């Protein structure tokens, strides 16, 4: 069936009744468990024919083929992966045989059971090919339309939709499964699902399976405000459970049917049932159908989507983070060359934290495969952050790659009037339903005036309309030029922004260009942004770390072309060496004791120095201030008033204090704590966070700690202890398999007649284990370890 005719049919009918469940009904008809359901239905086609005939008699106008699991991956569980085309074709023929000319047959496509990238390990294009193979079989059987259903991952739904669209022009319904929190398993909201899928060309979108009809009403309601396409709802008859080896559902047909009106009122135009429903449910649903006027949005809303959520354009000012761009970033360049993406992850995180709503992604640089790098980065960003992306590349191939694999609706940065690129990029943007930034330049270059830029914009829009684009899909770039070289350029940009606003377009600028080559760029940038916002700007591409609240009169004059050669600006705002003097923070009335108690490492140095200047002896600082403070911290930790981070922060503050005092203590011949301690994680064990914390604590109580690290052989531990004349050996192990190594160390120590006391600790260690292997002590945590060492060595505090 033609797509337009299908939508016309829905508009005429207002509500179309679908069918209900098949799987459970065929189980009742005798389909054994463990067989391939599709193959069994072919071999026992009279059961399928009867069921589908019953649905038609109940009032179903569209019947789904029994091909939910007839893809290569699912069929391979029954060694039928080579029968994909045949099985699909036969099952379509069976349904067609009873359909007549008034019933439509929808080729049913279900999930593969595997996840495509970025969530799973299946290559996205491989996933598309798997669905394409199934769709070919359905086409060969003569389906009227496709229905992609029970999708729990938007990326898999996209793959199936792309597969259908690349094969033919039949209508495609896409139906997702949401949990009671209105999210798919991979976190997609109903709003994100509809924005992504309708931009990609789905003709009907909605929800099936999931929960019962009551909960489904909320999902339909969430989708409706964004729907340019009709919506579908096919709920379960409650949640399934097994009773005497039969799957049963709790909700009766009568109760189920009572929700029909509310589903339609919420916005569903195609309704039916999923698991647990039978022809009786559909028949009762029919009796409750109401036919309100079909209201759909004329255009796809101006919105972008990520894996999880949407950003609506025009609702609030949008900041596009510009920092994922290797230009001028050495670290990022080096990482991209190595294929590492840590810096990308950090930049993404930082920008989200600072308020970016969209991330601009540019990975273009010499010496790398931009297409492959973009793929890697897109897969990372799809899951690392939950905001949409703006793909920034000069290569149409790179842009296409990003659009194909990103699990949401993308913004392209940018499409200009350059004829070659325009011809390549418009079809790509249209195929994947992307929005784009229209850069008003063409083969002749950048026009200087707003008027000439408008001419290019009009020309591009005329062509874009032929590819189905509307005003909503396009964002005009104000085209910011550098004020230092073109003093009138900012004024022309502002004019263009005003024009865009007047003509109903959204507009954007790449901000930082305006101040290139001038001092105090952030003041100029911020001032210009505020001027542009006043003119009607609703997007900016910038570094989110800037303060955008600055408005400066001198900058306004500069940006309006009133500061000839930027002379005044340069004179007034060039920073001198004097200006760069760093002002130290005042520590006011803080004491050393308080600084340790509060873990304020950043001020302890200054406090120690000022106390020394006053003539207080280093040893007195230790005895009268530092040790009492850390003891107080220990008490608070014991009472759980402090937790581990506070204990560690105080210990770290002590560490810094000691680093200043230690040389002075030695110089003044004050006897330093002579007790050496050797610490190690035993052989075979690689866990050392606990041991590291113990080391930190002991050091800050004045002990000389020699940390041998992790996975340390018993001989090395004993030898080092002997060499240092260590009073204590502290051993750590986290696993049951490695704790036995502690015994080896103790036995070796005894054999070698070593005098050191051996104490142990770690997640699986207990007091009784310590006793059993002959250890001299056990501590359950770092603070206990300090107390234990103090006790063994008779150190009183």
């Amino acid at each position, binding site marked *: 069936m033609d797509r337009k005719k299908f939508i016309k049919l829905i508009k005429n009918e207002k509500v179309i009744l679908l069918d209900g469940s098949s799987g459970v009904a065929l189980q009742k008809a005798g389909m054994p468990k463990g067989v391939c359901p599709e193959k069994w239905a072919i071999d026992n086609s009279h059961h399928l024919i009867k069921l589908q005939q019953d649905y038609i008699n109940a009032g179903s106008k569209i019947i789904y083929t029994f091909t939910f699991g007839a893809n290569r991956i699912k069929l391979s569980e029954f060694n039928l992966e080579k029968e994909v085309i045949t099985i699909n074709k036969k099952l379509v023929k069976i349904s067609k045989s009873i359909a007549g000319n008034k019933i439509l047959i929808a080729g049913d496509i279900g999930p593969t059971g595997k996840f495509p*990238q970025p*969530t799973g390990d299946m290559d996205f294009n491989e996933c598309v090919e798997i669905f394409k193979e199934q769709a070919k079989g359905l086409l060969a059987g003569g389906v009227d339309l496709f229905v992609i259903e029970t999708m729990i991952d938007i990326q898999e739904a996209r793959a199936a939709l792309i597969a259908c669209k690349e094969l033919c022009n039949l209508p495609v319904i896409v139906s997702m499964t949401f949990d009671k929190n209105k999210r798919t398993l991979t976190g997609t909201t109903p709003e994100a699902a509809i924005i992504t899928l309708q931009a990609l060309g789905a003709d009907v979108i909605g929800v099936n399976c999931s929960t019962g009809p009551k909960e489904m009403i909320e999902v339909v309601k969430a989708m409706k405000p964004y729907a340019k396409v009709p919506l579908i709802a096919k709920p379960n008859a409650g949640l399934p*459970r097994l009773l005497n080896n039969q799957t049963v559902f709790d909700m009766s047909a009568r109760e189920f049917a009572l929700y029909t009106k509310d589903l339609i009122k919420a916005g569903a135009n195609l309704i039916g049932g999923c698991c647990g429903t039978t022809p009786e449910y559909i028949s009762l649903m029919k009796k409750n159908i109401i036919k309100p006027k079909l209201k759909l949005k004329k255009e796809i809303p101006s919105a972008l989507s990520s894996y999880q959520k949407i950003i609506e354009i025009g609702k609030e000012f949008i900041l596009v983070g510009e920092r994922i761009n290797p230009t001028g970033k050495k670290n990022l360049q080096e990482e991209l060359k190595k294929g590492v993406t840590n810096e990308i*992850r950090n930049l993404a*995180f930082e920008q989200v934290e600072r308020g970016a709503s969209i991330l601009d992604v540019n990975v273009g640089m010499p010496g790398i495969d931009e297409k492959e790098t973009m793929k890697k980065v897109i897969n990372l960003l799809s899951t690392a952050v939950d905001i949409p992306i703006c793909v920034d590349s000069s290569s149409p191939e790179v842009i296409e790659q990003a659009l194909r694999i990103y699990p949401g609706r993308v913004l392209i940065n940018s499409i200009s009037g350059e004829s070659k690129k325009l011809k390549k990029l418009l079809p790509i943007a249209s195929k994947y339903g992307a929005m784009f930034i229209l850069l008003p330049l063409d083969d002749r270059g950048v026009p200087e005036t707003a008027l000439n830029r408008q001419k290019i914009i009009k020309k591009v829009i005329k062509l874009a309309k032929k590819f189905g684009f509307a005003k909503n899909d396009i964002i005009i770039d104000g085209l910011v030029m550098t004020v230092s070289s073109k003093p009138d350029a900012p004024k022309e940009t502002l004019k263009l922004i005003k024009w865009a606003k007047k003509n109903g377009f959204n507009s954007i600028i790449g901000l930082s260009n305006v101040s290139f080559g001038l001092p105090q760029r952030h003041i100029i940038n911020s001032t210009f942004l505020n001027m542009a916002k006043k003119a009607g700007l609703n997007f900016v591409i910038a570094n989110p770390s800037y303060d955008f609240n600055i408005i400066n009169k001198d900058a306004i004059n500069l940006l309006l072309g009133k500061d000839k050669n930027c002379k005044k600006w340069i004179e007034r705002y060039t920073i001198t060496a004097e200006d760069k003097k760093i002002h130290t923070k005042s520590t006011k009335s803080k004491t050393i004791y308080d600084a340790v108690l509060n873990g304020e490492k950043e001020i302890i140095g200054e406090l120690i120095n000022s106390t020394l200047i006053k003539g207080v002896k280093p040893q007195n600082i230790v005895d009268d201030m530092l040790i009492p403070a850390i003891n107080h911290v220990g008490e608070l930790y014991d009472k759980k*008033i402090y937790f581990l*981070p506070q204990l560690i922060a105080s210990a*770290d503050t002590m560490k810094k204090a000691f680093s200043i005092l230690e040389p002075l203590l030695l110089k003044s011949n004050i006897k330093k704590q002579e007790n050496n301690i050797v610490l190690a994680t035993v052989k075979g064990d690689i866990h050392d966070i606990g041991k*590291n914390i113990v080391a930190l604590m002991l050091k800050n109580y004045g002990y000389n700690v020699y940390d041998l690290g992790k996975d340390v052989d018993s001989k090395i531990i004993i030898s080092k202890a002997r060499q240092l004349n260590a009073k204590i050996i502290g051993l750590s192990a986290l*696993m049951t398999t490695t704790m036995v190594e502690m015994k080896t160390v103790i036995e070796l120590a005894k054999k070698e007649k070593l005098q050191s006391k051996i104490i142990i600790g770690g997640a699986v260690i207990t007091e009784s284990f310590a006793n059993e292997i002959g250890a001299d002590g056990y501590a359950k945590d770092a603070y206990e370890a300090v107390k234990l060492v103090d006790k063994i060595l008779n150190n009183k505090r």
Partner: protein
Amino acid sequence: MNNKINYFYNIKKEAENKKILFRIGYKSGITKISKKDEKEINLMIKKSKNLCSLKGAYSRFKIFKNKDKIFFNKKIFIKSKNLSKLLIDSDEVVLMAATVGQEIINERDKQMKNGDPVYSIILDATASETADAGLDWIQDFLNTILAKNGMQLTRRYSPGYGDLDISVQKIIYKKLDLKKIGIRITKKYLLIPEKSVLAIAGIIKTEN
């Protein structure tokens, strides 16, 4: 039954902050923390979560049981009374794994050595909780799929707990071919990256 392994390369699941804080000793109603410190710790948790690269794998296996032994085939079996009790109603199990990757571990060690030890322990706790959250996600996913047929998972059980020997990690490691998601196993059955977790759960019928 399908013994194919499913791998997840990017699991979008965050650990709960309250679980992370609990792991490092925070006691609600007892522990006192200033607003400034709370803000800093929350930021550290956010940064830590950002360094987790949560991956996972699972597969379903038919089993047969004999007293306190669970057999995958005649040669491969697990001996555990606790696990046998858990799987009493199951003839199929799911083996699962989750890892947060090496990057957060490297950062943790770097911070402990030359940086901020407070951040180091936050990184450690976040990594542990995120790995557990990965297994939660896999369980949620499987329960969604299983619910279609009136089935569900039992609670999960990990090697090293109770009488389930740590050496069982080797069996799960091999069955799931975990090198595909960057996990290695040592001679002492420890997993690298350190914050990697394995578990086993039974498939049972949903209670009437």
